[in-house]
């Protein structure tokens, strides 16, 4: 099927034109390493489209389709229905979408797929803006972050995707981060073994859009997890399970200081961000306790 013009260790080619220090590349390599060859990829336009191929050139050794921004979950549902009709129960249908294709444009199709509990694995890599088209703010952009459409800092906070997903009562949902690749691989492996609509929300720092040196991708993701700006959690069978408690909960200053996009967010905005982080974490802790009872 594929004409092999280059060798690679895994399922993804080594020479992909993503930016230096791109988190998506780390995520897709680890995800496909765990999912294996028996996978079909659905990728909407966005940074991840580099992996679905440009022109005749493919970057992954898997079958896949590049759809539209608004219907990745619908396309994946259709492929899953086809497999069901064929009696194929082993192939994983994986939608690999950005935050724009998930929380903004594709939310309706994802919501439908979650409602019908389609047998798909939906992965959202969250770089918190439309990076591919020139850093426009999305509804996943955090409070105070500067983008080309919110040059003075975003005046409102971001949508809480994982809680939207949890409200649909899916069999498995989790958040992960490039800060802990072992944890990310474990969650993908767990999701692979479950039937039904599974959603993974993965934090993915972007050196170009966030304004930091490309070497700090993993360090920044770690700061995000440590400050509670990104909460690692799992949702399974109606129960919430939080990861380890952030060591610097409610002190996002270090995390924000590393990034140029927060240069306009000073004083009150930082305090407001910290307050939001603490109140969200406390709410999630309450949810965790509720599930434990």
């Amino acid at each position: 099927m594929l004409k092999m013009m280059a060798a690679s260790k895994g399922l993804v080619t080594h020479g992909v034109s993503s930016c230096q220090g791109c988190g998506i590349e780390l995520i897709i390599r680890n995800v496909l390493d765990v999912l294996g060859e028996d996978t079909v990829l659905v990728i909407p336009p966005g940074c991840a489209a580099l992996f679905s191929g440009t022109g005749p050139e493919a970057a992954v050794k898997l079958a896949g389709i590049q759809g539209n921004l608004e219907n990745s979950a619908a396309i994946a549902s259709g492929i899953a229905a086809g497999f069901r009709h064929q009696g194929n129960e082993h192939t994983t249908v994986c939608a690999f979408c950005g935050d724009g294709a998930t929380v903004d444009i594709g939310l309706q199709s994802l919501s439908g797929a979650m409602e019908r509990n389609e047998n798909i694995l939906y992965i959202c890599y969250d770089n918190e803006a439309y990076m591919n088209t020139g850093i426009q703010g999305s509804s996943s952009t955090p409070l105070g972050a500067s983008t080309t459409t919110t040059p003075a800092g975003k005046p409102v906070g971001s949508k809480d995707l994982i809680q939207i997903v949890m409200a649909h009562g899916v069999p498995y949902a989790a958040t992960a981060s490039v800060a802990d690749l072992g944890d990310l691989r474990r969650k993908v492996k767990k999701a692979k073994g479950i039937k039904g609509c599974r959603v993974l929300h993965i934090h993915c720092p972007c050196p170009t859009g966030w304004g930091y040196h490309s070497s700090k991708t993993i360090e920044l993701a770690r700061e995000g997890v440590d400050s509670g700006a990104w909460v690692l959690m799992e949702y399974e069978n109606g129960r919430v399970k939080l990861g380890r408690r952030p060591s610097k909960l409610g002190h996002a200053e270090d995390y924000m200081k590393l990034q140029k996009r927060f240069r306009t967010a000073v004083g009150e905005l930082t305090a407001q961000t910290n307050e939001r982080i603490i109140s969200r974490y406390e709410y999630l802790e309450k949810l965790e306790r509720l599930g434990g009872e």
Partner: protein
Amino acid sequence: MSTQRETPTSTPAKRRILGPCSVVFTAANTGSWRLERPQLDESKCIRCGTCARSCPTDCITVSRDGCPVVFDWYYCKGCGICVNECPKNALSLVKERGEH
């Protein structure tokens, strides 16, 4: 990764695939982007493999014997994540074309 196909992929009329269909598995020479490159201090390296795990291009090979860390310079973009993540500070970033 730069040529865009403008005509539909030719197939029998009934199974006509419209739009580009990627069938050539290939790789771009991303090593040519590099402005800085990681340099290894072999005496500090403990062969833990952290650099290889955290490399976005997956171009690092860590081996038990011989040179501990081998980079594939055809693909290394010089992002420096390996340098930042190394627990023993055995890697450092140096200018690709010497000091200027």
